[in-house]
């Protein structure tokens, strides 16, 4: 299996990274073999320092719920090992677009995705792609912390367990918690219920939970909107650490947050379509610095300077 050797550089040096087993398991499934995994091979990963390649290639993507368009004509690339921020007013389709990237939208009845979403060159919506496998490669953190009503340990171990990851589970849990900057806070109470943690800790637990399955990308849907500034700061620091290893896409309402952490920013706005529906679309996509200091579009400028929104 080629992807084993490809994935290795991103895992910490240790004899048996769980990603191996997770992906070899996938290889046992012939459908998955023909599907996304075989093409997920990130060959460029070893070229450090060079031009970063696109993880996601979003081309003319539109999403509609029961025939009503929510967002349309979205076209931009999401680069590897970068943080891409999606900003814009409420109802502009940022979260909708985010949920297209790991096929969480499949779970909403009546939701249809048009256009092309490429993931490392493979069509994410191709007929042979298994959405369950997609979600093991593209993790997601939600707006409200959603730990499982179980112990901290079981929260982290859930992903590896359902994916049938072999290897020392204790080790996997510890590594995920360390990467989630949570180990020192919780190492003495791994068996405690996760509901007893603070909101910020719960959200870091959700991030760590997502890291335990060694994803390629982490999608974050307003991860700090329910948190206080100190917890928010911790999560932002964590994101900057994580981008060394993962690509991150974050939806945020907090423009300072986008300016602080992201490398690229996509600004969405809401327009009225011909049928008088409110439809979101991308106004501007560029380096974050440019979007915030020298935006090309007057609507972006009005939004980022706080004149509207």
């Amino acid at each position, binding site marked *: 299996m080629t992807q084993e050797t490809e994935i290795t550089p991103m895992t910490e040096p240790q004899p048996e990274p769980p990603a191996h087993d997770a992906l070899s398991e996938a290889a046992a499934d012939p459908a998955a073999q023909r599907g996304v995994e075989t093409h997920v091979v990130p060959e460029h990963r070893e070229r450090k320092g060079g031009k970063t390649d696109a993880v996601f290639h979003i081309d003319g993507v539109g999403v509609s719920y029961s025939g009503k368009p929510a967002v349309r004509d979205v076209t931009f690339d999401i680069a590897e090992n970068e943080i891409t921020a999606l900003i814009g007013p409420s109802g502009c389709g940022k979260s909708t677009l985010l949920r297209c990237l790991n096929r969480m939208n499949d*779970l909403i*009845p009546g939701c249809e995705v048009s256009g092309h979403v490429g993931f490392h060159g493979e069509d994410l919506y191709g007929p042979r792609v298994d959405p369950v*496998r997609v*979600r093991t490669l593209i993790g*997601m953190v939600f707006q*409200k912390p959603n730990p499982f009503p179980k112990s901290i340990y079981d929260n982290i171990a859930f992903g590896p367990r359902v994916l049938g990851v072999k290897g020392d589970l204790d080790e996997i849990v510890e590594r995920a918690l360390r990467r989630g900057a949570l180990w020192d806070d919780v190492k003495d109470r791994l068996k405690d219920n996760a509901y007893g943690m603070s909101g910020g800790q719960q959200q870091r637990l959700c991030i760590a939970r997502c890291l335990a399955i060694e994803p390629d990308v982490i999608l974050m849907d307003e991860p700090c909107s329910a948190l206080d500034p100190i917890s928010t700061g911790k999560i932002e620091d964590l994101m900057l650490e994580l981008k060394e290893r993962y690509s991150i896409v974050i939806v945020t309402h907090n423009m300072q947050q986008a300016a602080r952490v992201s490398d690229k920013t996509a600004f969405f706005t809401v327009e009225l379509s011909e049928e008088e529906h409110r439809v979101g679309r991308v106004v501007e996509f560029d380096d974050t610095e440019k979007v915030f200091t020298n935006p090309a579009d007057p609507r972006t400028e009005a939004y980022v300077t706080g004149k509207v929104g």
Partner: protein
Amino acid sequence: MAVDPGLPGAARTQLAVAGARATTAAALNRKGSGPRVQEGLFLALLLLAVGFALAGLAALLVWSFVEGLPRLDANLFTQGPSSLHPETAGFRTAILGSVYVIGGVIALIVPLGVGAAIYLEEYADKTRWWNRFIELNVQNLAGVPSIVYGILGLAFIVRGPLDIGFVAAAGSMTLALLVLPTVILAAREAIRAVPPSIREGALALGATQWQTVRRQVLPAAIPGILTGIILGVARAIGEAAPLLLVGAVTFVTVNPSLFEGRFTTLPVQIFNYAGRPQEVFHELAAAGVIVMLVVLLAMNSFAIWLRNHYEKKLS
């Protein structure tokens, strides 16, 4: 027993309590004098209604205890029915029959009820007409009188396609059909109460739908499901009418078995004793009522305790 299993918890009691509370709250908040008379009247009406319900229950309890207390002894549990020695007769075969029948009911309703609830909540596409049809039917079945299930059991289980005869297993199946809608509705409610964010969290980690249901949704819903099962079983314990149709007889002196021979159950035996002319049998019936009341109250209390206990744990 005034336990309505249509909804988890004694629904009638809950409704009465909620109504009284709302009225009281409204009366306390209102300052004007005009509507206050109406409020007072309405409150009195509600209290009267609650009073009637409680008075009925109290009368039953008082009668049972006064009549039955002298007969509460070991014979009640160790002796079978007897016409010759009514003063030492008891409920042994009836209690055993109830245990057999209820054991069968539990074995049937747990997998069927929980399975149906999981399908309806987690898998069924509600935009399809057949799923809506099933839902509507389950709700309607919960309101069908128990005697109708007795006729169904007689036609399809005792005779007809299954043809297993007048045995305890036929009673189990009939009662299982009777309480299944209750269990399904309660289990659905419990499954629906699990926050969608937990399902999303599990699915986003690459769990399949079944893994999500099996490892996250079901464990979180189990207390609610158990409550529904206990209330369903409590209703089944008290049922006599459908069992009379599927072969529960009133005079069995040998211990029952599931698939052979006649059987009887506690409520059927009480019905029989109560119908006899001699005073001594009435006392026996009253003692039987006490036994049943204790069992039912214990089960309902356990269901309520279970729900409260886990509700605290989850939130």
